[in-house]
């Protein structure tokens, strides 16, 4: 069928099943926006392109469907960069479409020209600069395939304006032909057998689950495995919810701000089963002492992650769900004993007693942890929790009981302040029936606060719960603990009245200064069914504990002891 390039793009998006897009137009994408004008695809106009990328990212994490964002050339495209890097670090499937100056102008420093494929090269899974309009159908087909398959990630498509204007014959290619891209999805049988043997023989096993369990949809299998061999499960920030924290076998999160019992369990384990996790330095602490008594099994889609940081005894490359299924079948053949780990679970219960997650309650002051607990209570743990970055992020991770994957959305790898609010908009667009709450810091929220206009514009009722401490709190905490309380440039108590600012945008705004009003504010915001900002004035110099100082062993925790 003969179509203009821009129409072919919109057609290709529809063929890929795209329903929602986030973006902001400019000169060289006017043809594309013209083609979108009458399309069935919903376009959400953001107020800053960074937010378009984060919204697409949040959308993808909440739904499992590839997120799409659009920006114009030059500054529009460079505004996407942080969002693309964020998606890359957390392996989110995303397609970022950028306009480019007309092909004849490329390389001449033309008006609003930026080499976006060059700029983003180290932070994309792949990228394309379209030089022949006839390539549009193939490139879009490939881009969506690459973004979502294997270890997911962002793909950039840069489209010069003349490519959007040219006429082409649109035909969706039936299959992709990428000779250099063949992800291994099925685990090697011999390796699976070897892993099964180790697992049934272990007396002190720990399963360590990460974001790969979310992206492969392996939650059910993870739970089956844990139950089958009675092994406790700890998750990374990215893996929160993949194993229900309400279960006795749950250890919660591990690492720098992990629970004491998770860190002790990992350190004393005799077998560590890593599933879709990548031994990040925030998880391992000092490598030399990390789980050094344990044999290690590592299940991951990305062969490059295996033995990258920690030497692995039994590597299994494959999709977590496939591998876990095979592994469970193999273990069942070996008739595992459920009694074997009894003493180990008893030991873990003792650690839970001696190192509980707690904080000191005050009479009227609002403790940030309390707000998080109230959010859990009021939503009965059913909300989609999105976070900003800093202390708020860690409290949201620790004091909410996560029970489902895709219900906790946080910037884990790049750790981007300003991610949470636009990501929550994306999450709500993707899952309109769920309550979506962005647990925010006063600093982070101000990095994309302009998106209040987007939320109000499209009536996207997300709730921003600011744990307002008037500080760049996490940095202040490091200064308090390791830099002699020299609070260099971390006090941000010169700030707007967030509630009134929200009202100015047309959203609901509530300021909460007393502990007894926390629940009511949450209930009001949920009932209002419109965008809401809750400004919780929390205890200003509260710290996140436990904490492992950078580079120390994960049992060398500050705080968190009874």
């Amino acid at each position, binding site marked *: 069928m003969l179509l203009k390039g821009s129409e072919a793009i919109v057609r290709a998006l529809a063929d890929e099943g795209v329903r929602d897009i986030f973006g902001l137009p400019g000169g060289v994408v006017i043809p594309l926006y013209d083609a979108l004008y009458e399309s069935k695809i919903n376009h959400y106009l953001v107020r800053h392109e960074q937010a378009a990328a984060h919204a697409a990212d949040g959308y993808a994490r909440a739904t499992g469907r590839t997120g799409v964002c659009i920006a114009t050339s030059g500054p529009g495209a460079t505004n996407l960069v942080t969002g693309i890097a964020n998606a890359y670090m957390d392996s989110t499937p995303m397609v970022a479409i950028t306009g480019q100056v007309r092909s004849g102008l490329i390389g001449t420093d033309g008006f609003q020209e930026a080499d976006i494929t*060059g700029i983003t*090269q*180290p932070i994309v*899974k792949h990228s394309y600069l379209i030089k022949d309009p006839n390539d549009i159908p193939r490139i879009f087909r490939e881009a969506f395939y690459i973004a979502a398959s294997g270890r997911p990630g962002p793909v950039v498509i840069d489209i010069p304006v003349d490519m959007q204007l040219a006429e082409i014959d649109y035909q969706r290619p039936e299959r992709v032909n990428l000779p*250099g891209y063949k992800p291994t999805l099925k685990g090697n049988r011999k390796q699976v057998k070897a892993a099964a043997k180790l697992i049934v023989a272990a007396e002190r096993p720990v399963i360590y689950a990460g974001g790969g369990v979310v992206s492969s949809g392996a939650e059910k299998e993870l739970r089956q495995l844990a139950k089958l061999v009675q092994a406790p499960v700890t998750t990374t920030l990215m893996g929160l919810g993949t194993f229900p924290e309400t279960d006795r076998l749950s250890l919660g999160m591990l690492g720098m701000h992990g629970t004491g019992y998770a860190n002790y369990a990992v350190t004393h384990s005799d077998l560590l089963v890593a599933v879709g996790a990548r031994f990040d330095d925030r998880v391992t602490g000092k490598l030399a002492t990390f789980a050094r008594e344990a044999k290690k099994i590592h299940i991951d889609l990305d062969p*490059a992650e*295996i*033995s990258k940081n920690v030497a692995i005894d039994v590597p299994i490359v494959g999709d977590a769900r496939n591998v876990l299924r095979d592994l469970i079948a193999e273990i069942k053949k070996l008739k595992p004993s459920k009694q074997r780990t009894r003493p180990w679970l008893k030991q873990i219960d003792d650690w839970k007693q001696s190192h509980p997650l707690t904080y000191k309650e005050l009479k009227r002051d609002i403790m940030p942890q309390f707000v998080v607990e109230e959010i859990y209570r009021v939503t009965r743990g059913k909300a989609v929790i999105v976070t900003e970055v800093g202390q708020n992020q860690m409290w949201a991770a620790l004091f909410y009981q996560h029970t489902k994957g895709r219900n906790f959305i946080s910037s884990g790898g790049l750790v981007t302040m300003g991610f949470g609010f636009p990501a929550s908009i994306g999450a709500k667009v993707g899952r309109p029936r769920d309550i979506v709450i962005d647990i925010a810091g006063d600093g982070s929220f101000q990095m994309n606060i302009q998106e209040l206009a987007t939320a109000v514009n499209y009536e996207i009722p997300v709730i921003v719960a600011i744990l307002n401490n008037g500080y760049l709190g996490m940095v202040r905490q490091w200064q308090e603990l390791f830099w002699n309380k020299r609070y260099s440039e971390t006090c941000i108590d010169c700030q707007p009245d967030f509630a009134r600012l929200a009202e100015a945008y047309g959203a609901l705004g509530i300021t909460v200064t007393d502990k007894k009003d926390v629940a009511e504010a949450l209930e009001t915001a949920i009932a209002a069914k419109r965008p809401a900002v809750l400004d919780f004035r929390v205890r200003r110099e509260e710290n996140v504990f436990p904490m492992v100082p950078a580079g120390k062993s994960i049992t060398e925790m500050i705080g968190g002891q009874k």
Partner: protein
Amino acid sequence: MKHTLSVLVENKPGVLSRVAGLFSRRGFNIDSLAVGVTENPDVSRMTITVDGKEHPIEQVTKQLHKLINVIKITDLDPVNTVARELALIKVKSDAGSRGEIMQIAEIFRANILDVARNTMVLEITGTTEKIDALLQLLAPQGVVEIVRTGRIAIERGAK
């Protein structure tokens, strides 16, 4: 140990930059790099030498594999590989030293491409070690300029 990676890539714009960018981003050093088309015009071959002592070679190859345009990587086994490098060497020479340089060239089977009043240009093909040895012998004469191609290599036998 030096590793010679023979990397088949799709012959598309930007591929060299992706490969080079990956090395710098991951903190790997490239000792030498040679690129050319293969018997299949859609496919190019990059021959990359890296120091395995400095970087775990497995990480290098696994990361390279993740580039969509990289089709195949072989870490060539030195025993089963013939490797060559080409160098052009401009060396100072005058009537007095010319004979000695020509003698050295003959021993190394180097060709003399140019003779000028004060310099000569030698062409040598061989292993890295052989070229280094020649350069060492020429050093006392005064080496003015060296141009080296980087190593290319191919496996022996039918494979």
